[in-house]
Structures are given as C-alpha cells and as structure tokens.
C-alpha cells in the first residue's frame, strides 16, 4: 500500500472522528448557551456539566422503535436521511486547518497539507454539496406521504434555493480578491496586514489583518444571513416551524433516522461557520507565538485559531436563535429576492470596479 493511500485513509478517519465528537460538543454548547440566555440551567446530569447529554440522547434514539408509515414511499423514505448526512461529512473535507506540516518517517520527509482535500474547484464543490441538502429535505417531505412533511419539504426547497443564489453571488467578490477557487489559496491570500498608499491611513490600517471581512463587510453580511437560511436555523426555520407544521419534513421520522437528520443539521451548521471563518475571517491564520510556546504549538495553534473563530460564529448562530422571532414566509422570500440578491449583485460590481482601478490603473491613463 502506498504512503499516499495511507495518508488519505488516515485523513478520512480523522475527519469523521473530529466531526462526530465535535457535533456532540456543539449540541451541548447550543443547549447550554440557549439555557443561559433564557435563565435556565440546561443539561447538567450526564457527565461533567452535562457534556455527555448528546451521547445519551443518541443512544436513546438508537434503541427506539422506528416506525415506517404505511402510506410512505418506502425506498425514498429510508434513503432520505442518508442523503442528508453523508454530504455533510464531505463539505468539511475542503476546509484548511493549517499550513503544510513536514513529517519525517523512515529517513524520508513527507509534506502533508493540513486539509482533507485541496481541490482547485473548492468553492464550487462547497456550493454543489450544500445544494444536495435540498434533495434530502424534499425527498423526506414528499416520501412521508403526509401533509405536514410535504408542506415543510416544499417550503424548504423554495427557501434554500432562494438563499443559495445570494450565497453564491456573495462569494464572488472573495474569489475576485484571491483569484482562486481553492480554499487553501483563499486563506493564504488573507495573510499579512492591510496597507494603504496614503501614509497617514497606512499607519492606522497596518495593524488590521488582511481578512476579507474588512474590505468585504457587505459580502460577509449577505453570506452569513444566507448561511443561516441555508441550514434552516431560526429565524429562517420555517421548514420545521413547530407551531404550524408540527415537525416539518421529519414529522414522520422516528428512531435513529430522526437522529440522522439532527446530526446532519448540526454538522452542516458547524461546516457553514468554519467555511465563513475560512472565507472572511482568515481561516486558520493567527499569531502562533513562536519562540514563547514549545515548537509543537506551531502545528496546533492554527487549528485552535480556526476553532475559536468557528465557535464565535456558532455562538452568533445560537444568539440569533435565542433572540429573533421567526420570519413570515412572504417576508422571507422578499428578503431573499428583493434585498439580498440585488444587493449582492451591486456589491459585486462595486468590488470589481475597485479591483479594476487598483490592478489596471485608470482606464484613460
């Protein structure tokens, strides 16, 4: 077996292990934060501070009876949770966790990039896989053979495709500035600090890192709102609006297949935050404190920085959920089509003009 294949297999196992442990942590984190915001205690029985609550829930759902409704379309009903869960594993693959590391093994040096897969079409890969989530919701809703899931599924498809258009367009300015679709290149293009040709301005901005969020704050806003809508979180959770649609598309699901939808939702949420951090907040970039900390930290610090940024964004997700009421459906569609898409197009034109002036000079000179 060649060394490349071993590296691939090890990476695949690490990715899955990290994602699943992380989801356990994330669900606990959300429940604790929401509980804190609502003056409750939250889960505190299983494990220290209730950190094993998610594991207990998963085991409980594993032991629950699974009901296959008599009116359901059998094959699609059983397949839909898989379509939800498996793509969510794959999105995490393209997120760079740190710079390349060099490993010495049997007197040979191997350079291993700390990323699951550095694809040169990374952004398209991300957009394509996040679209597959729509299929799982629509198929789950339709195949249940019930009224509430059907309504939830149709709503979900219309909502997700509306916000996906805005999401794709908000990414274009980032690609313009980095000149690549590879996420590794996008992170590398954000290293260093901002600079300006005006001396006084330069002294002020030279302390600010060259993250995309500073020049591209509008694109960041559009992308973040679209990301919340894309993973169907409050205030855009009309898909599973409890008061009107019972459970939305997963009303008829029970047992472990129900748990799979929830696992997929939380993994997608984590992926979205990590991707947002990569595109706009500099990904793994951050001070490594070389010389102060032991050398091993030059490998660990980038991962810690990415984790800190991701969990900050996740905190904002939870904060939004605890704060804002759900949107009405017509307001949701209006926000998507009449505000966010035109705004992202106009912002794209403005970014292109600024980049053109900087790169090519004035057109008449």
């Amino acid at each position: 077996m060649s060394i490349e294949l071993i590296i691939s297999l090890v990476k695949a196992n690490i990715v899955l292990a990290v994602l699943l442990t992380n989801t356990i942590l994330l669900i606990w984190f959300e429940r604790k934060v929401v509980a804190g915001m609502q003056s409750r205690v939250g889960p505190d029985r299983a494990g220290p501070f209730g950190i094993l609550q998610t594991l207990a829930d998963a085991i409980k759902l594993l032991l629950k009876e699974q009901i296959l409704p008599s009116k359901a379309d059998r094959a699609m009903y059983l397949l839909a949770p898989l379509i939800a869960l498996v793509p969510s594993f794959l999105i995490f693959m393209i997120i760079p966790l740190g710079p390349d590391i060099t490993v010495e093994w049997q007197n040979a040096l191997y350079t291993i990039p700390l990323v699951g897969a550095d694809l040169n079409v990374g952004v398209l890969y991300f957009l394509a896989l996040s679209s597959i989530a729509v299929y799982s919701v629509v198929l789950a809703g339709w195949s249940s053979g019930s009224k509430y899931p059907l309504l939830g599924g149709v709503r979900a498809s219309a909502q997700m495709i509306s916000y996906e258009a805005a999401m794709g367009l908000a990414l274009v300015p980032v690609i313009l500035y980095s000149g690549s679709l590879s996420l590794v290149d996008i992170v590398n293009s954000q290293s260093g600090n901002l600079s300006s040709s005006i001396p006084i301005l330069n002294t002020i901005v030279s302390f600010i890192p060259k993250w995309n969020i500073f020049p591209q704050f509008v694109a960041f806003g559009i992308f973040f709102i679209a990301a919340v809508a894309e993973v169907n979180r409050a205030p855009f959770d009309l898909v599973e609006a409890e008061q009107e649609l019972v459970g939305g598309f997963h009303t008829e699901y029970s047992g472990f297949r129900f748990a799979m939808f929830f696992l997929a939702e939380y993994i997608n949420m984590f992926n979205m935050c990590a991707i947002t951090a990569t595109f706009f907040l500099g990904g793994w970039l951050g001070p490594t404190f070389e010389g102060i900390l032991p050398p091993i930290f030059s490998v660990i610090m980038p991962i810690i920085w990415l984790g800190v940024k991701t969990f900050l964004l996740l905190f904002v997700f939870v904060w939004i959920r605890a704060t804002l009421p759900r949107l009405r459906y017509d307001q949701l569609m209006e926000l998507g089509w009449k505000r966010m898409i035109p705004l992202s197009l106009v912002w794209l034109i403005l970014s292109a003009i600024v980049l053109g002036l900087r790169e090519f000079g004035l057109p008449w000179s």
Partner: protein
Amino acid sequence: MISYFQDYVTIGAVLGFGLFLVVLLLGVASVLRPNKPYAEKLQTYECGVDPVGTGWSQTYVRYYIFGLLFVIFDVEAVFIFPWAINLEKLGYFGLIEMFVFIFILLIGLIYAIRKDVLKWES
C-alpha cells in the same frame, strides 16, 4: 498527478467510511430496537385524528416560479465564477463585459419584481 488524484481519493474514502458508519449504526439499531408495528401506529400523523384524504396533494404554483428563477440565477453564477478568477488577465474588456451581463440580469430581476411575480400575497 498523483497528488491531484489523492485529494479525490481522500474524498472517496470519507464517502465510503461515512456510508459504512451510517449503515453500521442503522444495522446496530435494527438489532437493538423493538419492532411491533400495527395499523394504528403506522397511520400518518395528523394531530391525533384519523387522516383525511391523501398525503400527496397539489401545491402552490408560486414555489415553482421561484424554482425557475433560481435556475436563471444559478446559471448566471456559473458564468461569473470563471470570470472572477480570470479578471486580471481580461483587464477592462472583461470588466465592462461583465457589467453589461449583470446589468441585463438586474433589469430582468426588476422586471420580475414589477410584474409582481415575486409577490407572495395574491
């Protein structure tokens, strides 16, 4: 060349392991869980009363229009991505070409808004 395919091999490995893990867990669940179906339990849920009519029904055509509009904007994004990477080579020519393209699209969107296609209440 090997490193180019290695990334896809890694993705394939995650796909394989992921499917294996999911199928394994479902298999474990099917051994452990109880299974006592009867007709009332398998009924579709409808707030506790007997379901009326079928679960599959006609849906609002408005959702379909949004689907059509999405196709337009997604195809447009397909054109914009390669342009965004190559802008430095294309220079002002590429910049102005894309402005014309986006301008026509914006007009199309404004037309749709003015025709009340995007209005939800009828």
